């Protein structure tokens, strides 16, 4: 018996050695395609990808076989999304970091069944920044993100465009989405009872390498993990410069040699390769060994739900080969990047505290304020235009990454001290690391959008934690234009659809004035939803050109009364 064990142990160790030595062969970093303009056509689908040798891995992708296109948007543009769900399951897609109406936000309420075309749209108000989009279906977020569904959004604006920054996508300006994955014996992604991967995937590429020019380059780095944090640095400990946080440029670059990036967070960095010889190499690495307990991925176990082969070790994220400089290289980091004016604690008129609760091993899952997420319960109502200070207290067993929808915030204190806030996290943020035994405060203004029906979310961005119910919801309510009397008389909205039958567009004509439409759903004759149109632009009509011939029903929800009136049309 003991002999057998020894033999197994030797085989086990040997497999380790093989794994570490094989890391010397690299795969070319996949860089997502870009989509730009004001209309973005996205198809979420099941697909497959050759990640390991042997069997292909069943993945999810958006217009791609893992992950999705980088959407390049311009501040001030009215953007329209045509998102078709060809995935085998219901999805939602959330525009992470985007300041937009709650009904467009893609949270757990905006479920998109298979086959449905969802058409949110909004005016881009965020400044130049690196945002992302990802699934947010309650209890299935981990599965859908683990399979690879997601993508970057790059916002450009006139201020950022005037700076001498690397801006040539895929050449000196490269997006990096960091994930690790565990695979089972059939090379399929493991997402149940497993929060850390054994293989590092950078942009979906295992053992990734890229050639970058001998000059200052910009890396837009996103942690899209289930739970793992990254303590990033370069293999020669060189200094690099943080130029942007989640919500956009810092006022000035911050020089560091290491920076922690938790789930959901983005940083943009600039690193100088001009002193590197052409043909030389440097690695971007995760220096994750020796972290204090509570840093996700620091646990020493090499397997099991909270263990992995990448836990508590330093490992490469990207092998960078230095190539010839481009024609007009960026040669310096601008001393001034932006002129953000941040809220301070003194600006806040309301203070709220949120406690991290439960989550003890073997006990209930983590929650906020001992209130696990319930889909139809609004935890907080925030008066429109409030400036508020929220304090998240983590007197609990593990670290978390607190995320809030709708707004970008300013971290104002760690453990009650403004001096405790790092320069590296001094910009606009939408995710903040709340380590074990720490209390972190931010200030934000809840402006521009109010809606008492569709909520925004706040939650831990560890997808396993949010799926477990570590999430709450808030609505932003405009009290100023309310009489205080909520009893609006319910009445049928009187409207006609024309032309009927229709071939390209169906228009809505109201028989009374001052109607506002909150939502239109188009349903086919067997009851399958085919289109979901949040706050549709009524004068433009409904584009039905993609629908098959047949009978359809329009369900139109009135904004004030929330009553739904159904009308029929024929598509020819």
């Amino acid at each position, binding site marked *: 018996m003991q002999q057998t*064990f*020894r033999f*197994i*142990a*030797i085989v*086990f*160790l040997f497999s380790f050695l093989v794994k570490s030595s094989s890391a010397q062969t690299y795969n070319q970093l996949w860089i997502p395609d870009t989509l730009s303009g004001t209309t973005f056509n996205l198809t979420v*689908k*099941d*697909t*497959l990808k*050759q990640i390991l040798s*042997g*069997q*292909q891995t*069943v993945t999810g992708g958006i217009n791609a076989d893992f992950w999705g296109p980088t959407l390049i948007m311009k501040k001030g543009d009215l953007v329209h999304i045509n998102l078709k769900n*060809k995935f*085998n*399951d219901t999805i939602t897609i959330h525009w992470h970091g985007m300041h937009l109406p709650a009904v467009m936000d893609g949270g757990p309420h905006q479920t998109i*069944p*298979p*086959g449905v075309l969802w058409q949110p749209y909004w005016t881009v108000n965020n400044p130049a920044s690196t945002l992302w989009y990802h699934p947010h279906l309650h209890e299935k977020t981990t599965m859908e993100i683990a399979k690879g569904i997601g993508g970057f959004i790059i916002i450009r604006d006139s201020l950022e465009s005037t700076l001498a920054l690397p801006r040539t996508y895929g050449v000196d300006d490269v997006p990096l989405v960091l994930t690790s994955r565990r695979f*089972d*014996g*059939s090379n*399929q992604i493991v997402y*149940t*009872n497993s929060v850390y991967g054994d293989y590092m995937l950078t942009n979906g590429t295992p053992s990734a390498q890229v050639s970058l020019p001998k000059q200052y380059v910009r890396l837009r780095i996103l942690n899209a993990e289930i739970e793992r944090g990254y303590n990033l640095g370069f293999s020669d400990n060189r200094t690099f410069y943080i130029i942007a946080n989640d919500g956009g440029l810092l006022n000035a670059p911050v020089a560091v040699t290491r920076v922690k990036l938790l789930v959901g967070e983005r940083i943009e960095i600039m690193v100088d390769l001009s002193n590197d010889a052409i043909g030389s190499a440097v690695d971007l690495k995760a220096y994750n060994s020796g972290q204090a307990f509570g840093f996700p991925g620091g646990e020493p*176990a*090499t*397997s*099991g*739900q909270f*263990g992995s082969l990448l836990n508590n070790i330093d490992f490469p994220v990207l092998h960078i080969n230095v190539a010839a400089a481009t024609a007009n290289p960026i040669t310096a980091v601008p001393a001034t990047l932006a002129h953000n004016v941040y809220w301070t604690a003194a600006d806040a008129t309301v203070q709220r505290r949120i406690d991290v609760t439960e989550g003890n091993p073997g006990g209930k899952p983590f929650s906020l304020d001992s209130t696990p997420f319930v889909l139809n319960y609004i935890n907080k109502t925030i008066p429109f235009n409030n400036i508020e200070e929220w304090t998240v207290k983590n007197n609990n067993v593990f670290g978390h990454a607190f995320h809030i929808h709708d707004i970008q915030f300013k971290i104002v204190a760690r453990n009650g001290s403004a001096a405790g806030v790092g320069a590296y996290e001094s910009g606009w943020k939408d995710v903040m690391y709340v380590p074990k035994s720490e209390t972190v405060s931010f200030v934000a203004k809840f402006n521009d959008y109010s809606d008492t029906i569709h909520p925004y979310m706040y939650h831990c961005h560890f997808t396993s934690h949010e799926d477990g119910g570590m999430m709450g919801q808030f609505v932003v309510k405009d009290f100023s234009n309310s009489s205080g009397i909520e009893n609006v008389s319910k009445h049928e909205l009187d409207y006609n659809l024309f032309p009927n039958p229709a071939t390209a567009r169906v228009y809505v004509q109201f028989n009374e004035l001052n109607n506002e439409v909150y939502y239109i759903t188009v349903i086919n004759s*067997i*009851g*399958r939803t085919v289109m979901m149109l949040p706050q549709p632009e009524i004068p433009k009509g409904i584009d039905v050109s993609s629908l098959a011939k047949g009978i359809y029903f329009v369900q139109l929800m009135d904004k004030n009364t929330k009553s739904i009136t159904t009308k029929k049309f024929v598509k020819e």
Partner: protein
Amino acid sequence: MKLFQSICIALVLLSVVAFKPSKPTTLVGNVVHDFALKNVDSKMVSLHDFADAKGFIVVFTCNHCPFAKLYSKRFNDLNSKYIAKGVPFLAINSMDTLVYEEESFELMKNKAQHDNFNFPYLYDCMQTVGKDFKAEHTPHAFVIWKENNQWVIKYSGAIDDNGEHPEKANPYIANAVDDLLHGKPVKMPETQSFGCAIFYRK
């Protein structure tokens, strides 16, 4: 050294615990029942129609799953090879036709024609047969064998171990049928099925 060995053993034990399959119940050995399902030629098909069959290869598949789409030619090859040996091939679509517009009977007919299916492609619109087999994904392959006038599952899982490169694949299902035809127990009776999940209506 002793300590080192203990650590190794501990690691092995940990990994055994960690990779214990979440669903320990096996489908192999289950008895499944005869059925009557509409084929793409609109004729009804039942197991008892094949009076001389020793067994069947039954694959749950569908129109829209990209992983299932890789296997059309292999399905034809399996049927050609084994129908002559008394083991016909049947494909069954148990996907929820209310949810997926691509899974309509009309589109099943189109697929069977386009991919030159030489075997029945059956429409399980009430999902009863999928539930009886406990089919989990498309594709999910079974070999059933006649024992004491009952149909017993002898193999459950993947068709082979390489979707995109059949020439490199270990043909699990062919191996299982060969074992049974030689009167031997199936060497590898269960592998993992994966692809698109089949969701059953309540």
